[in-house]
């Protein structure tokens, strides 16, 4: 009797796992539990190729989904972007390039499955700092050898004074 109960419990557990969908043993990265939509990368940025994954399985919806679409209007893309089916039932994926004009902020694009499941996930679009950074004040491109100029001016001064003295002596000498 105990053995039977154990077997029934095991069967129930296995059924629960199957019904839950997306067993971790299947190909691809492990599906984070409790999430319907995955977005890579998140945060993303304008001009970046971004992947959306959806798991359309649900307890209440009518059967497995045969297709899914991503609503891209919020992101400045086509309104209905068809998603590709994967080797996993109910899992669909699509990769889009976010428009370079997309404003930074938080977005909630919606995904609709053919079986009536609809889901959305919050994702962050970060700014791409566009202006090139100012990283230098030009010292090595503009600073001159000021010390050399100072030495030269010094020599010039000494020469001028010496010349003046010599000239004066010369005149005084010629007077007497």
């Amino acid at each position, binding site marked *: 009797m105990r053995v039977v109960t154990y077997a029934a419990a095991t069967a129930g557990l296995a059924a629960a796992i199957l019904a839950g969908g997306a067993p971790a043993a299947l190909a691809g990265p492990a599906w984070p539990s409790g999430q319907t939509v995955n977005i*890579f990368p998140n945060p993303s940025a304008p001009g970046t190729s971004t992947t959306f994954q959806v798991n359309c399985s649900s307890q209440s919806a009518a059967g497995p989904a045969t297709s899914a679409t991503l609503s891209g209007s919020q992101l400045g893309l086509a309104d209905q972007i068809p998603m590709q089916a994967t080797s996993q039932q109910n899992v669909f994926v699509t990769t889009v390039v976010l428009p370079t004009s997309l404003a930074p902020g938080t977005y909630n694009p919606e995904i609709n499955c053919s079986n009536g499941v609809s889901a959305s996930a919050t994702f962050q679009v970060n700014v791409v700092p*566009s202006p090139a950074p*100012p990283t230098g004040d*030009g010292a090595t*491109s503009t600073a*001159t050898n000021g010390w050399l*100029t100072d030495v030269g001016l010094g020599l*010039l001064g000494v020469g001028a004074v010496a010349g003046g003295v010599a000239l004066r002596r010369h005149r005084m000498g010629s007077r007497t």
Partner: protein
Amino acid sequence: MPRLINALVVALIVGGIALAYAGNHTLRWSPPPAPPKWAGRAHSPPRPAGWEANRPADRLDPKDAAKHGYLVTPMATSAPVSISIPSIKVRAKVIALGVTKAGAVEVPPLTHPFLTSWYDKGPTPGASGAAVLFGHVDSAAVGPAVFYNLGELRPGDLIYVTLKDKRTGVFKVYSAALYQKADFPALAIYSYTSWPSLRLITCGGAFDTATGHYLGNTVVFAQYVGQQSGAAP
């Protein structure tokens, strides 16, 4: 005797003028080096073996990575604290900076010419994506600054970035180029890469004395090749 004095006076005056002129017309330091054209040829980075485009590598199970022959696993997220580039004798602290209200990236103050900054709106070095570090090329107070010799880096050179968790990421340069400010490749620099990568940025090219800015930027692109515990060499 007076002739000798006359000659000396003339020599002093002529020599002094020549020296003063030369001092005013020669640069105290040479302008920053620019990378040669061939060093900037790799526009798209060589993808580490086994890495697929857009693969969410940061979520991969290490066992899965080993099964698929992934060469490297990304580092844990941790802010960078120092950078070491042995080939150009750079050793510097790294601080975290974001963007200004105008949307420009913040860089360290010119009063700290040997400090580098990490763009903290992007990924940390060694995590999937492109981590970006900035440093000054020069400053009036010291002349050549921390990234003055960035243009000397060539494909194959190694860059070490030590993180707060005391692990050091090793990155290999695959491209180095000088871009005019108007052609600054912001997307190529900041865009997400499914493997960890690193970009080092400083100023370069001709200097515009009218605006007080360099007309270009030297950008070094590197890819993550592994990690080690402890400090950089």
